[in-house]
C-alpha cells in the first residue's frame, strides 16, 4: 500500500452544501438558487490596515458599515467597524488573498479564508421581501434596506448575512451546515406566501 504519491488521486470537485437540496420556486412569488460565488475571505483590520490596503482593494473598504462595495474582482460587505466579508465572484482574482497580505505590509490585519465555511443562497422574485420577512426581524422595504445594504442578521434560528443585490433579489450567506435548514425555511415561506396570495385572489 506504500504506493508513491503519483498513484494518489487528486480530488478536484468541491462538494457544495446546497447541491442535493430541492430549491423551491413559485411563479410570481420567489425562487431560491445557489449563488455563483467562488471565494470568501474575512478581513479584519483597523484604520491603519485599511489605508495600507488601498492598493489592493481600492476604495472598497471605505464603504459605510452594513453596505456592500464592489472592488476589483470582489464585493466587500462591511459588517462592522473593522470587519469585511469579501465575496469573490466567478471571475475572482485567485491571488486576492496574496495581494491583500502583500499590500498590508506592516499593518495589522486578520485575513482568514472562509470559502468553504458558508453556502451562498439567492432569493429572488417579486415577493422576496415577504418571504424573508417570515423569519428575518429587520425591516426589508427598499427605504430601510436598499440595494447593497448588507448585514448580519437572523433568519428564524439561523444566523445569516443578508445582502440586497436588487429590488427583487437578496443574497444570503449561511454556515454550510445550516444550508438545508435555511432552504427548508424559504421553501415553506414561499409555499405559504403562494397559498395566501391564492386565497386572496380566488
Amino acid at each position, binding site marked *: 500500500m506504500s504506493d508513491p504519491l503519483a498513484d494518489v488521486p487528486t480530488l478536484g470537485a468541491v*462538494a457544495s452544501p446546497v447541491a442535493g437540496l430541492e430549491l423551491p420556486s413559485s411563479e410570481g412569488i420567489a425562487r431560491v438558487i445557489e449563488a455563483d460565488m467562488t471565494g470568501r475571505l474575512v478581513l*479584519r*483590520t483597523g484604520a491603519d490596515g485599511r489605508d495600507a490596503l488601498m492598493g489592493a482593494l481600492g476604495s472598497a473598504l471605505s464603504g459605510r458599515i452594513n453596505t456592500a462595495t464592489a472592488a476589483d474582482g470582489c464585493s466587500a460587505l462591511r459588517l462592522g467597524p473593522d470587519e469585511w466579508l469579501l465575496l469573490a465572484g466567478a471571475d475572482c482574482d485567485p491571488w486576492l488573498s496574496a495581494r491583500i497580505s502583500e499590500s498590508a505590509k506592516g499593518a495589522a490585519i486578520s485575513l*482568514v479564508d472562509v470559502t*468553504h465555511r458558508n453556502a451562498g443562497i439567492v432569493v429572488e422574485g417579486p415577493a422576496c421581501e415577504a418571504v424573508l*420577512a417570515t423569519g428575518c426581524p429587520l425591516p426589508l422595504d427598499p427605504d430601510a434596506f436598499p440595494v447593497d445594504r448588507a448585514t448580519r442578521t437572523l433568519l428564524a434560528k439561523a444566523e445569516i448575512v443578508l445582502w440586497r443585490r436588487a429590488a427583487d433579489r437578496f443574497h444570503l450567506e449561511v454556515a454550510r451546515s445550516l444550508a438545508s435548514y435555511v432552504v427548508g425555511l424559504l421553501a415553506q415561506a414561499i409555499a405559504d406566501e403562494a397559498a395566501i396570495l391564492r386565497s386572496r385572489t380566488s
Partner: protein
Amino acid sequence: MRDRIPATEERFRLATGGRIERTRRLNFTFDGKAYSGRPGDTLASALLANGVHLVGRSFKYHRPRGILAAGSEEPNALVTIKRDWRRVTPNLRATEVELYEGLAAESQNRWPSLERDAASVNDRLSELFPAGFYYKTFMGPKRLGRAGRAAWKRVYEPAIRRMAGLGRAPAVADPDRYSARYAHCDVLVAGAGPAGLAAALAAAEAGASVIVADEQAELGGSLLSETHVAVEGVPAWEWLSSVLLRLAAFERVCLLPRTTVFGAYPDRMMGLVERLSDHLEDPDAALPRERLWQVRAAEIVLATGAIERPLVFPDNDRPGIMLAGAVTAYLHRYAVLAGTTAVVVTASDEGYAAAVDLMGHGVPVARLVDVRDAPGRAALNLAEASGLAVTTGAVVLGTRGRHRVSGIDIAHAKSARETIPCDVLAMSAGRQPTLHLFSQLRGKLAWSEDHQALMPVSRLEHVRIAGAASQTGGTVRAALASGHSAGEAAARATGATAAKPRAPLADAGNELGGETIGQTRSVRIAKGRAFVDFQNDVTSKDIRLATREGFRSIEHVKRYTTSGMATDQGKTSNVNALGVVAGALDTDLGALGHTTYRPPFTPVSFGALAAGCRGDLFDPLRLTPIDPSARARGAIFEAVGQWQRARYFPRTGEDMHAAVARECRAVRTSVGVFDATTLGKIEVVGPGAAAFLDRLYVNALARLPVGRCRYAVMLSEAGFVMDDGIVARLAPDRFHVTTTTGGAARVLAHMEDYLQTEFTDLQCWLTSVTEAWGVIAVQGPKARELLAPLIEDVDLSSQILPHMGLAEGRIFGVPMRLFRVSFTGELGYEVNVPAGHARSVWDELLTRAEALGGAPYGTEAMHVLRAEKGYIIVGQESDGTVTPGDLGLPTGASKPDFVGKRSLTRPDMQDPNRLQLVGLSCVDDGGQLEEGAQLTQRPDPPPGTPASGYVTSSYMSPTLGLPIALALVLGGRTRIGEELYSPMERGARRVRIVPPIFHDPKGTLLHV
C-alpha cells in the same frame, strides 16, 4: 346533511337590513341539529336567528347559558368546532366563529345532552362549592389520615378535575400549518372602528406607513352595528365602504381583518395573530391556518373600543339575558331579533337607546328597569317620546325561566314584587374602555369617578388612545375626531410631512350622551346567586365570602375566587368584581387598584405561537460534510446540540456493544478514522494573538512555538473549567484554536467579550472557522503508514512532526492543516481539509484504512478510548463546579495571570478534600457501573448520608476486557487503593479507587 332541510327557517331574522348576504343560505349543525344562516353571520347570530339561546353549560354549576355578547368578550357561548376528525377546536366563542357551509359546532360541558345535563345537579349543590373550593378541596380533609388523603388524591381529585374544565383538549397532532411574519410600520392601529379608521386615514394621508388590525371578519367595529348616524353626510355604512376603499388604495397601508393584536411587548413589538382559513368552507390544503405577526411599530394608536358591563343581579345568567349593546348589534348588523318581548335593565343611558331600537323594530319592550334613582334628562325624554315604560330606582329580585329567561322580578317604590314576563332581557351597566394593550405597555389605570370606569392616568411615549377606549359615553363624532387627531399626531411623530388631512365629521346624531354611566357599587342583592364572572361561575356571594375570609387585595380575591381567571380574563367581570369587593369592604373603589392585564388579549393557538418551528424546521439539524458517507455505511447517529454525529458503525449482526468494542480494537491495533468536524474552531490572528490566548487559557501559550500545538483549558471567571481544546500556532500572529462541539459558540462569545471589554490593549481578531474545515481524526499504530503516502510537503517522522506538532501541506492534492494530536492514546493525527473536500478525502482515507485492517469509529468508541486514557470531557467529568486542579490538570501556578486565576486562590478552591478525578475499578464482577451513581463509604448508608463522590464516566473497556470508570471523589487523589460502594437498587457495587488512567500510563504510544 347539507341537503337536509333545516328544522327552523331563521324565524327571528328580519326581512330587511343587516350586513348579511341574503341571497345565499349556509347550512350548519349545532349539536347535530341542522340549521341555516347567511354569509356574514357568526355562529352566534345564526343560532339567534333560529331562536336558539341555550348554547352551553357553565363551568362549575352546569347552569344553562346563552349568548351574552356579540364580540370577543363573550364569556358563555363557548363551543367546539369539528372541521374533521383531526381538526377539533374547543372553547371557541360562538360570537367570533364565522359561519361557513357545513360548519359543525357542538356545545360543551354537558352530558348526555345540553338540555338534560346530568351534572346540572351541581347547581343545587352549590353550597358545596364555595369560593376557594379548589384550595380547600385539594388540601384533602385532615381527618382522612395519610391513606385517606392518598385515596383522595387518586380518586376524588382526578374526578373533580374531569368534572371541571370546558372543552376537551385535542387528542391528535394539529395537522395545520402556521406561518409567521415580521413587519414594521410607522403607525399600528389596533381596532378598526370609527376611531381606528379615522386614525389610519389621517396617518396614511400624512404619509405614514400604517397597519390596521381588527379582530373581526369585517373592518368597521361599532360602525357595523350603527344605522342611525351619518358621517360626512352619508349613512355610516356607506362612509365605511368608501373609507376602506380609500385606505386600500394607499400602497403603504396594510389592512388586516381577522387579526387580533393580542400582546404588547418591549419597545412596541406587538403580537398579532391573523386567522387565515378557519372561516373558509374548504380551505386550500397549502393555506396556513393562522399567521403570527410580530410588528415593530414606531407609533401605536389604540382604538380598541369599550366593553359593555353586565349588571350583577340574582340569576342574571339565564339564556336570553344579554348585553344591551349585543342586542342592538344582532339587530342592526345581523338583522336578528333576540326575542319577541323584551325587558331592559340598565344603569346606563345606553339601555334606553337599546329599548328604543327594539321598539323601532317591532319588539315590544315591556319595561325599562333603571336601577338608578335619577336617570339623566336626555334619557327620560327619549323614553317619553317613544312611549317607553320606565321604572326607576328599581331592585332586581331575580329572573325566571329554565333554558331561557321568561320573566323578571323587580321591586320598586310602588310595588314590593312585580313580575314582568319577557323572553329577552337586555342589560347595561355602562362600558369599560378596552385598555388591555395600554396596560400591557405599562400604562397606568385608575378608577375614575367621573367616568365610572378604569381610565388611563399615565401617558406613554409613542402610544395614543382614541375613540371609546379613551372616553366613556362618546359618540361616533367624538370617536372620529379623537381617532383623526391621534392618527395624524402619530404620523407626524414619525416624520410624515404630507399635506394636512381633513377630519371626517359625523352628524351630532340622535345619540345619547354618556354622562351617566352605571354604578357598579350600588348593586343590591336579593336572594339567589348573582353572577360576576360567568365563565368561571363566580358569584357576588363568593367574592363577599373571600373578603370575609380575610382577602383584601383584589389580586388575592381574584386568585381565591378565580374571578377573572377564565379564558376571557374577566373582560365582562373584572370591574364588577372590583365593585363587589369595594362594597363588601366599604372602601372606595379607586383604592382597590385593579388586576393585571396580561397577554394574550384573547386565547392564541399554540400553533400560531410555534409558527413554522415544527417538524424538520423546529431547530436546525446540522450535518457534517462527511454525513452522507457515514449514513451510507449504516452509522447510528446521536444528537450533540444541533449536530448529528455518528455514534457507531455497526456491521451486520452487531449491536452497539459489539460495534464499539470492534472499533476500539481497530484503533488500538491498526487505525481508526473518525469524523471530528463538529469541533469548534476559531482562528485568532493579529500581533496580540499570543498574549490574548495566554490570558484566556490556564496553559502557557505566549511562547508556544510556531508549528506546535498545546492542550489548553479555559476557565470561567469563577475559576471553574469552561472548555478545553487544542491551541495550534500556525505563524507568530496566527493561531488555530479548537473548542468542544457544544462549546463553540459560547467560547467565541466569551473571547469576544474579553477582547472588546477587558483586553483592549491587544490587537487581534477572532474568526469562526468551525465550518470552514472538515476534520478527520486518524488514530492508531498504523496512522502514519496510512497517511504518509497520501501527503505532500509534510514529513510525518517523529523527528520532524512530533506529538503535538503541526504542519501545513496537501492530501490528495487538497490543502491541509495536519495536527499530530491524540484523543485515544495512540499515535494520532487530525487532518483538516476545506469542508467542501472533506467527504471525498474521508472516502479515500477510509478505503485505504480498511485495507490496513482499520475501521471508521464513532463518538461512542471515541469516549471509551479517551476514558481508557483518563482524558476528560468537559461537561462529563466537569459540571461547572470543577477546577483544573480537581481534574489533575495544570493549574497555571507559574503564570502571573489568566481568566479565573484569582478565583483559584480562594481557600475552598484549594481544599485538599474537594472532589477530585480518579479512576474506579470494580472489585466485584457486576459489570459496568452506572454513570452518575453515588459513591459511599458503606454499602447500605442510612438515608441522609452524604456521598463521597459520584461516577462521571463508565464503560466496558475492550482493551482491558474489564469495566472501567472515572469518578469525582472527595480527596480522591490521596485515597488510591481505598474501596468504596455504589449503592444501587439491586445491591451495592464494590469499587476500588485507582489512578484515572487505564491504558499506556507512560504515554509511550503517543510518541512512536
